[in-house]
């Protein structure tokens, strides 16, 4: 790849809604090709952290660096360029409800590429096939199941071949087999496209199967209490909250 290496660097980030601090002092790095897991108990600010990373919410303090560029201190043009290099699958799918699946996937292509209509049609077919939705081009989001909506959202996120893919709870609401398939798909995308993947999840199976780096947010102390490969954390981390999370609360029995 001749493009600059995408790497996210979170530096001393504090997130807050008004006076209410969600998380403070977050510092971690996401390297190229990582499958980075943001984990933690419910309500600890995982999704909020994601919103900070993708540029939807400005940090109360600290910086989010894409490569050498600090997202919140750079020009709007530069921001747009960064945003265009990322793809996001939202928690609820967030497909545009007034557009068909094909239109959902093709909209970013039409906006940001100079492909002909025939090329776009082929690309849409490819992306929908990748997520197992070939043939559903003319369906509206409300006409397909929740799991299918999630996969269609992934197809849309992949439309522009992003360098970084973000997932907000990808396997929530999916049956175990579909969740497993989604994991395989994420791994495949990382390996074949060289994408960097950031996932917000608390699905332990996925965390151990695909994650190679992670950050653990603690709702009690409102900061990160662990970072590193989830499997290493499971083996080595002594923090009781992390242990109990990674072992579904059975840590006490194992020690």
């Amino acid at each position, binding site marked *: 790849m001749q493009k600059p290496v995408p790497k996210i660097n979170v530096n001393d980030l504090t997130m807050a809604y008004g006076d209410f601090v969600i998380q403070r002092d977050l510092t971690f790095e996401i390297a190229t090709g990582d499958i980075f897991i943001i984990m933690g108990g419910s309500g600890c600010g995982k999704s909020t952290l994601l919103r900070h990373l993708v540029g939807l919410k400005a940090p109360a303090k600290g910086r989010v660096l894409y490569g050498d560029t600090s997202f919140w201190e750079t020009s709007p043009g530069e921001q747009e360029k960064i945003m265009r290099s990322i793809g996001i699958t939202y928690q609820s799918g*967030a497909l*545009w*409800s007034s557009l068909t699946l094909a239109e959902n996937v093709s909209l970013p292509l039409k*906006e940001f590429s100079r492909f002909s209509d025939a090329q776009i049609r082929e690309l849409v077919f490819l992306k929908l096939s990748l997520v197992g939705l070939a043939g559903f081009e003319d369906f509206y989001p409300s006409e397909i199941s929740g799991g299918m909506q999630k996969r269609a959202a992934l197809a849309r996120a992949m439309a522009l071949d992003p360098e970084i893919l973000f997932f907000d709870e990808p396997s929530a609401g999916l049956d175990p087999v579909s969740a497993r398939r989604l994991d395989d798909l994420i791994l495949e995308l990382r390996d074949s496209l060289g994408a960097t993947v950031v996932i917000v999840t608390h699905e332990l199976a996925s965390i151990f199967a695909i994650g190679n780096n992670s950050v653990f947010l603690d709702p009690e102390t409102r900061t990160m209490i662990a970072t590193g490969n989830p499997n290493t954390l499971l083996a080595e981390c002594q923090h009781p909250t992390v242990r109990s999370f990674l072992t579904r609360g059975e840590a006490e029995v194992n020690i």
Partner: protein
Amino acid sequence: MTDNLATTDEPHGLKATVVNLDTLLVELYGSWQINDDRQPAGNILQTVQEKADLRKIEFDTRKMGAWNSGLLTFLLNIHSYCTEHNIEMIRKGLPQGVERILSLALAVPEKKDARGDVKKTPLLEKVGAWTLDYVRTSAEMLSFIGEVCVACLKMFKGSARFRMSDLMLFIQQCGAQALPIVTLISLLVGLILAFVGAVQLQMFGAQIYVANLVALAMAREMGAMMTGIIMAGRTGAAFAAQLGTMQVNEEIDAFKTMGINPVEFLVLPRMLALVLMMPLLCLYADLMGIIGGAVVSIGMLDISAVEYYNQTKSSLNLAHFGVGVFKSAVFGVLVSVAGCLRGMQCGRSSSAVGDAATSAVVTGIIFIIVSDAVMTVIFTIIGI
């Protein structure tokens, strides 16, 4: 020493007996369901404690029948009373299921600071908060209007990005589909104007001037204003609800992170559609109002159709229509800005969508009336 309490209401209830001076034996019998009414546990315990210094509570449930959450809430009450008064609650005598569920409920202690404390804010503080809130919303409104202006400029330069098919859909929705209600309302407004005018003008024998009254009022004022208000209620609310729901579903976030400007893509076609359709609807409303006036004049005032037509024609010129059409275009901008603004500001819950729709209508109507007053004064001063 024994003490019997609350034993009267068969077939369910409890019998509390003090044994060994400091132990209360509670016998539960009959059914313990949620809707069986009984004395609160606290009261019972208090009555007992006035007479004996309790240290322990034991239970006997051998005669108890069916139970559900009603029993559990009762026991939880006893438990909290016990912790408060340092009494030991011995749960041995309870059925196994009850004991297990109770342990489950007590496993995680109540989080004291999680409940929002209701605190009374003094009036001055409230006024301050309102003011700050007002400043904040005004700033939001200004920045939204700024974004809309930028998007409009981009549109004139031909570089705004939105879908033609969306624009056509909105044109259909706020144009053709609004015709029935605009017909009904403006016909009736013309009718009302004619009635009000007729009563006064008949006293002078000048009922022919009903035609002038209706024609001028409709063309300059009522046609534009009534369509404006109809569209605020019909289309402004719809815009707010559509955009609000998209906000709730994170669809607007998806636009932003895709690098697509939601103001261009969502707001611009809606605004354009309304601004294009409002003048047409206004002209249509003018015509309907004049027909309404004609119905009254011909039917009640013995004015012939030709007379009415000629009188109307002589009283109107293009400037009158121009004033109305201009106003309606302004109302179109205002209604769509109000609707889209409230939609984009919408919070992330279903009730927020309702609030956004309500607020869009209110804001739209206020905008219409205020701007109408300003424009009417200006037109009068410059003599159009």
